[in-house]
């Protein structure tokens, strides 16, 4: 039997920042009002450009590699899942390791939850909710042949270079036809880590070296990887 899963594409240039994806994602009964997709303002004050960020489902996921509790599983379709509830210790290694800033600890349940490409829907042959509702086609679910035929002005790639390491992702991004990989600045912040995979291993080692399984007992890790983007806070915080 052939896999019901297709390919997921992000076409950043089309995003209008409407948050329909987040609104639809938040309707899911497994995370109940909390979206697993994030819409970032890339250059607030200067440009209205926004970008949707789903889990990229890396082929060597830094989140899973960094997990000291082996709570993050990758299935045979290349979907990287939310942490397994009985194993997750909410240590935040995955939050720190992910170069795309995707995994988040849900504070109320102390568990990492993230985009699983709407596993319930995609496994049944449907599109993920965000890619179904996206009003502009910034999120698209289909085959490589389909997107190449539909959008000849741009092309899909799935290779990202962070520092000295290349990350290959299951999710594709649409880029100008002369671009072959996305090159992202890698901050020197992470104690000599060469890239996300290296960082993930170092984060995991640190747990193992210190013999810590209780996140309360180890020294705080750096807060972020100096992400280029700013998550839209929602204007409720305006005043």
């Amino acid at each position, binding site marked *: 039997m052939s896999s019901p899963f297709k390919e997921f594409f992000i076409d950043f*240039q*089309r*995003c*209008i*920042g*409407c*948050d*329909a994806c*987040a*609104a*639809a994602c*938040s*309707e899911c*009964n*497994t995370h*109940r*009002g909390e979206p697993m997709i994030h819409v970032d303002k890339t250059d*607030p*004050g*200067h*440009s*209205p*450009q*926004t970008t949707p960020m789903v889990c990229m489902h890396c082929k060597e996921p830094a989140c899973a590699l960094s997990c000291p509790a082996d709570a993050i599983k990758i299935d045979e379709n290349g979907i990287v899942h939310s942490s397994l509830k009985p194993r997750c210790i909410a240590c935040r290694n995955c939050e720190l390791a992910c170069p795309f800033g995707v995994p988040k600890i849900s504070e109320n349940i102390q568990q990492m939850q993230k985009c699983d490409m709407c596993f319930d829907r995609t496994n049944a042959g449907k*599109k993920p*909710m965000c890619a*179904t*509702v*996206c*009003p*502009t*086609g910034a999120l698209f679910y289909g085959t490589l042949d389909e997107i190449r035929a*539909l*959008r*000849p*002005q741009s092309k899909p790639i799935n290779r990202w270079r962070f520092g000295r390491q290349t990350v290959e992702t299951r999710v594709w991004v649409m880029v100008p036809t002369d671009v072959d990989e996305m090159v992202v600045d890698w901050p020197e912040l992470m104690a000599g880590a060469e890239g996300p995979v290296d960082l993930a291993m170092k984060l995991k080692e640190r747990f193992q070296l210190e013999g810590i399984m209780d996140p309360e007992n180890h020294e705080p890790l750096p807060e972020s990887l100096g992400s280029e983007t700013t998550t*839209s806070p*929602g*204007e*409720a915080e*305006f*005043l």
Partner: protein
Amino acid sequence: MANPSTTQDEYIARYGPHVSDTPVSGWTADMVPDELVKTHCCFCGMQCGIQLAVKDNKVVGFEPWEEFPFNEGRLCPKGVKRYMQTHHPDRLTDPLIRTENGFRKATWDEALSLVVSRIKDIQARKGNNAFAMMSGVSLSNEKSYLVGKFARLALRTANLDYNGRFCMVSAGGGNKKAFGIDRTANSWEDIPKAKVIFLSGTNVSECFPTLTHYIWQARDNGAQLIVVDPRVTPIARTAEYHLAVRPGTDSALNQALLHELVRNDWIDHKFVTENCKGWEELKESVRECTPEWAGAICGVEPALIRRVAEVWGTAPTSFLMHARGIEQHTKGVENVLGLINLVLATGRIGREGCGYGTITGQGNGQGGREHGHKCDQLPGNRDIENPEHRAHICKVWGITDDELPHKGKTAVEIFEAIHEGEIAGLINICCNPLVSHPDTNYVREAVGKMEFFCVIDFFMSETARYADVILPGSLHEEEEGTSTTAEARVVRIRAAVTPPANARTDTEILLEIARRLDAEDKFTYADNRAIFEELRAASKGGTADYAGITWERIEKEMGVFWPCPEIGHPGTRRLFENGRSYHPDGKFHLHPTPYRPSFEVPDAEYPLYYTTGRSVYHYLSGTQTRRIKFLVEKCPGPVCEMHPMLAEKLGFKERQIVTLETRRGSITVPLRVTEGIRPDTVFVPYHWAERLAANQLTVRALDPISKMPEFKVAACRVRAANKEEADRLRAEWKTLIQEAS
């Protein structure tokens, strides 16, 4: 005495807006709905297909409707979260009658008796036209038709108008003058086939998000995008050519573009001479309108105007769209005609990939305006002063000509007549003029002067707070019917559930008032379908001809495009394919549109342009969307956009609280500093009421033809808010995101 008898805070505490974001069923992973009802979103003229999940007569969620051809499942955040409105804790479920300290619940009989006795009393003393009706085009075609007939035959008043007066009337006026028909000329299917897309005064990505996909499909096929807008909207950001014109200067730009078309001979001579009327006069009118002349008026580089003229002039195919950005002006009709001239001069209409259209803003802005709650129109887009048109409707309605009122006052004129005491009573349905009317302080004074004010609504809108009687009506998802999308596709609206508790459908309410006004014999409908059947007959032979459209056909064919004069007719996706307009002479009429300034332009005292618009998170006056938590968290209140150069000059910082003032009023809001706006212009979205109403500042000046107010241009000044204003804003801001207790 239509004055609020308690404080605004007290109204909010009792009736909202409160925010809510949990499905009525709660979050239940294993919930299986009884039914997925295929219907449409209620928030904007796209009328996207959507399925509402229903269980036990409750709307418990949604599911995309991927088979519906216009949007294929795509939705904006309003559409996604729309189902949260149905069982919202703020729903009005009992008739309310004003008391000394607010409202008390009443029985339907008591409330309706009071309404009818007050109507009869006012009309007996002051004449039938002293009682008016205001309506809205979020109503279905059936309800719109019913309102038109109800006002004329039950209230027996000429003074019926609607909130489309703030939305579609300039477009309608321009289209009728040029084409003899008021409809977008093509279905949206032609957009992806066009090689140049021209968007003038339309923030497509925030106001019609799902239409953005069509524009991107065109661009995937190599189309270039031209956007005219004072702001860098999300769609303008991506345009090849963005002309950030000064508010109110569009007609100068349009003339200069035509000047360049003429100068470079990018004209379809055969089309303008054989198919059009008025070419020589039009050509002569732009002789002096050089890009340098327009550039100085518009604040745009002449070279950019030249380049855009070339792109437009040499395009093999094209699609031009406009919306309220050019229409909400004292020269709205002229701006529409100026753009139509660009389309007609190049002859790119009525063919595949060659299109033109206004983008209807309100849910049923298209169908609503066709079928009779516009003061000058009868069903089928007929003219209420045309004897033949009147005769047709009199026949359908079984009345004589003297029983059919003539043209009444337009929306703004109705409120002016209330001020002057000429109109003493009003029924208001589907309309929140305390938010959407220009110069809201003037409207508040007007409603305070009325003898009797009745509001039919599903929530306590800010306008309803001033009512004497409120009748709890129905939502889009609570009545069967149809609506007509911005591309003139008639679609089916389904009753997913019945109105909650003691609320009634709008149709039941109107029919019962008609019965009590002794007009029962004119309103003998068994159900909403019977209203549609009469609408078909009433529209027959009009330009908006629905005679061949049935509910069954709509469901089977996923919508039918009017005109559709008979059952066997396929419907009309593209107008003008035979090269003829709908004027009796069959010609496309060209009209010179010489530039003239807006009603109020900046001066030494009020040096800035003030302009208004929408946010993607809210619909119209916000009565619905300001109650949905997800949308409110993204956009709780109005914010003033200002360019950093202007902010620096005035000494303001990001998020500072500022006060904007015009000659009408002031508003205190937080500042958002952004390069996405002209440095001489400030922008505030209009979805809020009372002290947060952007329309406190707008001007009541009207387009002479369409009577559209000038929402898009006023002269203003900005200063730092004083402590009292800032404290008040902070307090009010908290109430915007308050949950129901």
